[in-house]
């Protein structure tokens, strides 16, 4: 029944009793309304335990447990009504889905909604296409009150399937999201999810049964307006918007009851490489972000069902809740050389058709998506070579290339310079528990490795910043012992004002006799990335920034950009990794001379628009990837540099295979560099925005200013549009819900 009809019926039913029968053979009880202005009586930090009543939340203590075949109805609060929130509907374990859809009289559900409204307000429920969460829904889904020990919550996203193909150091990844409407009225599904921060999203399909509709990339405002019109007129439509370089918002409008709409997204990206290991990462959940007071660019973290406005926010499931969303991942590797070893953060099944090919898949295709999937593979050591990949556009003749320069393995024997090591530890609420303990152990390991000529400082930040010492202190045994005691006393809590940590780390005089290395230990769960990058760029001076991502689903975009802006490198410390090993390896690399004065002789290639613009220093074991355009013929490239004062020359050849994905990879690098420039230099005239938009449209890529939209104009669904349902997600593994979610 559409909303217009519902209003008429509701008015006709004025004055009915609060309780109502909803299905044959059972009694329906309405949850007592929970005042919209006070938090619901629910303890999300409670230990996981099965709820024998099947209720998602408890209401007032007087509410009895539902009998078999009982259905509870949700009427979500709106911004324009005084109707209080009531609890969600759960079908008991013996309920039959068909019985519900065949026998549930919709007017009864409307009666429940209307009487709840009358109890609080004389004003009619306002129906418009902008209010969040308007409407009442009956959930008609297969009866399963529990998943394991957690309470099942009906949500539209059923499954995400990831299929990746890796060739060389470029991966092509196809992500399929399947949305099914478990309710008896139309819905709009909204889902915020992560992708790798360098993902070049170039393909978008909406799949309805046997029909596939390819989406069109347009300027963001235009795509949003097209989607809004389609949604309002009842057409099935999809919209993909970039909220951050590594966070995307998917909207699917007018999903009819019981129907399924799938979205296929394809992206390309360059794999990370370190010490002989390539790393494929697929992030599965956006970590809850802390947002300093800034009304313009929030990425909120809110409890399920509490999203109130139109700003971007991720809804999180309470620890005792579980939706039906699960994930499957498959990766096919064609390395071209022998694959020596493979390891993953998850349990995987591995097939090896040959020594150079591997197929890896999650063992459990219904894996809970609450931590990043990382697959590392090592190829035969002596065959790892610097590579030059190319592609030429048949229409324009323009060439695109990607050069990966891999320096010689192993630290040099040349003695290192004295260091001034500054550790900046994120002690905010999201770091509570294992993440902070990992960070402490990593810092303690570093302290043990310092020499007598080195100095160090430890800075802690959350709401503000505090220092271990007034100035960096010498790495004497006494100072190191005091520092260990300081680390042991560190506690977590409060917000994540990372700018304060940046200021504390960089706003003091640099010792010219030492190399200042500033190491951030953080999960990166903040919403103001551009402020952080701008602060680093403005204060860097002679320092180098090294970012350690600590946790399972860290903000890789921020961490990678901090390291790039700070001419350093990034490292990741998972909750199950050895902090001593990771930090020890890290120090081995950064403590010795790097490759400097890197220059390229491109041979017969005439290169333009190469990124990064400024060639960074190159640390042993870490590659340098340069992406650009060219005319002429690709051949051998000669790279010259100095290592510890000694000259080094490397010749890099092309395999002459054509790789069309390089065009999008290059465009993505260009967009990223321009966006970084805008974050610290500003863009008052909008020129950077225009260039980003032009580049993205030309290469059909997502960006901060371009979005994908797809509309099925063949048939209108009944009514104008549905109820908006935000796909709630679990907090990342190891993150405390109580300290991170509003």
């Amino acid at each position: 029944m559409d909303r217009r009809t519902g209003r008429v019926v509701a008015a006709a039913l004025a004055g009915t009793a609060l309780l109502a029968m909803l299905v044959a053979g059972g009694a329906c009880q309405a949850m007592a309304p929970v005042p919209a202005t006070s938090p619901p009586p629910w303890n999300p930090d409670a230990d996981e335990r099965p709820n024998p009543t099947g209720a998602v939340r408890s209401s007032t203590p007087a509410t009895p447990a539902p009998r078999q075949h009982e259905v509870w109805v949700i009427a979500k609060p709106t911004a324009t009504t005084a109707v209080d929130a009531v609890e969600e509907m759960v079908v008991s374990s013996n309920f039959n889905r068909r019985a519900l859809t065949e026998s549930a009289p919709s007017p009864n559900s409307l009666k429940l909604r209307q009487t709840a409204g009358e109890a609080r307000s004389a004003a009619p429920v306002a129906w418009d296409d902008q209010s969040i969460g308007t409407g009442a829904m009956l959930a008609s889904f297969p009866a399963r009150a529990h998943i394991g020990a957690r309470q099942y919550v009906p949500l539209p996203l059923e499954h995400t399937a990831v299929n990746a193909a890796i060739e060389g150091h470029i991966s092509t990844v196809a992500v399929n999201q399947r949305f099914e409407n478990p309710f008896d009225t139309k819905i709009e599904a909204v889902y915020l999810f992560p992708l790798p921060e360098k993902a070049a999203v170039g393909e978008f399909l909406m799949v309805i049964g046997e029909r596939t509709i390819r989406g069109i990339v347009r300027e963001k405002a235009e795509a949003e307006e097209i989607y809004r019109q389609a949604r309002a007129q009842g057409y099935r439509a999809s919209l993909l918007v970039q909220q951050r370089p590594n966070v995307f918002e998917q909207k699917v409008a007018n999903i009819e009851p019981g129907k399924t709409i799938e979205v296929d997204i394809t992206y390309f990206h360059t794999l990370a490489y370190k010490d002989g290991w390539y790393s494929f990462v697929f992030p599965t959940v956006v970590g809850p972000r802390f947002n300093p007071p800034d009304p313009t660019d929030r990425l909120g973290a809110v409890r399920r069902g509490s999203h109130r406005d139109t700003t971007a926010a991720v809804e999180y499931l309470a620890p005792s809740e579980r939706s039906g969303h699960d994930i499957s991942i498959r990766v096919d590797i064609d390395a071209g050389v022998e694959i020596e070893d493979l390891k993953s953060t998850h349990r995987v099944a591995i097939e090896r058709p040959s020594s150079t090919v591997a197929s890896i898949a999650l063992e459990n295709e219904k894996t809970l998506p609450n931590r990043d999937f990382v697959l590392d593979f090592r190829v035969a050591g002596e065959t790892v070579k610097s590579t030059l990949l190319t592609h030429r556009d048949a229409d324009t003749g323009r060439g695109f290339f990607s050069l990966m320069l891999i320096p010689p393995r192993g630290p040099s024997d040349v003695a290192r310079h004295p260091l001034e090591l500054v550790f900046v530890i994120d002690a905010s609420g999201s770091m509570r528990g294992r993440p902070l303990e990992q960070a402490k152990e990593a810092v303690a390991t570093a302290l043990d490795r310092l020499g007598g000529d080195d100095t160090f400082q430890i800075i802690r930040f959350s709401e503000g910043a505090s220092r271990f010492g007034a100035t960096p202190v010498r790495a004497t045994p006494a100072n190191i012992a005091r520092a260990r005691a300081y680390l042991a006393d560190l506690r977590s809590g409060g917000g994540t004002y990372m700018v304060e940590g940046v200021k504390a780390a960089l706003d003091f005089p640099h010792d010219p006799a030492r190399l200042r290395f500033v190491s951030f230990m953080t999960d990166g769960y903040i919403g103001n990335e551009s402020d952080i990058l701008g602060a680093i760029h403005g204060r860097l001076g002679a320092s180098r920034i090294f970012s350690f991502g600590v946790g399972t689903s860290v903000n890789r975009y921020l961490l990678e950009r901090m390291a790039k802006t700070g001419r350093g490198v990034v490292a990741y410390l998972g909750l199950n990794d050895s902090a001593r090993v990771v930090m020890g390896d890290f120090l081995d690399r950064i403590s010795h001379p790097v490759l400097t004065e890197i220059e390229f002789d491109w041979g017969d290639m005439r290169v333009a628009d190469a990124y990064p613009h400024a060639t960074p220093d190159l640390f042993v074991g870490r590659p340098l990837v340069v992406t650009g355009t060219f005319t002429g013929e690709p051949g051998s490239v000669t790279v010259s540099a100095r290592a510890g004062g000694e000259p080094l020359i490397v010749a890099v050849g092309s395999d002459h295979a054509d790789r069309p994905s390089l065009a999008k990879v290059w465009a993505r690098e260009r967009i990223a560099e321009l966006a970084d420039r805008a974050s610290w230099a500003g863009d008052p005239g909008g020129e950077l925005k225009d260039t980003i938009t032009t580049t993205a449209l030309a290469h059909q890529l997502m960006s901060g200013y371009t979005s994908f939209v797809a509309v099925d104009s063949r048939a209108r669904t009944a009514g104008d549009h549905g109820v908006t349902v935000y796909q709630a997600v679990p907090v990342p593994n190891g993150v405390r819900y109580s300290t991170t979610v509003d």
Partner: protein
Amino acid sequence: MKRLGCILAIALAALADAAEQADAPHAPRFVPVDIVLDSPEPVAAWQFELTDRNGAIKIVGIENGESPAFDRAPYYDRDATQGGAVERVVVADYTLADEAELPQGRTRIATVHVLVADEANFVVTLVAAATADGRPIDASISLVLATDAKRRNRWTEEPAA
């Protein structure tokens, strides 16, 4: 009372729908444009161009056709939706399916979903059609609009050059 309420609701809904149909004929609306290829031989690849001489459309989706041999959404030219006075799209697709599975005769090869702001004047042009071994095919192309869209828009079908 309840029955009266339902009758009232249905009547109001019907009135509302009728009012919507009688909206101003040039109000923005979404229209599917079916592209039909008529080929005397099995088709393995094709390319067409669709444009609107009035500049009244925005392309909002491109859908696959009816042949199982072309079961994915076709590709479109990256310059086709860059705005400007006239919006046009070049759409193409190919298949590696066995010849026995290739479409022949009159086949819907794609649907272009558009948002029409005013009265459109569609032009569809067949750029190329080819067999599995790359031979050009002397085929014809046409477009089919939904009934209500036919009342509001014009179209022209042009053969390959």
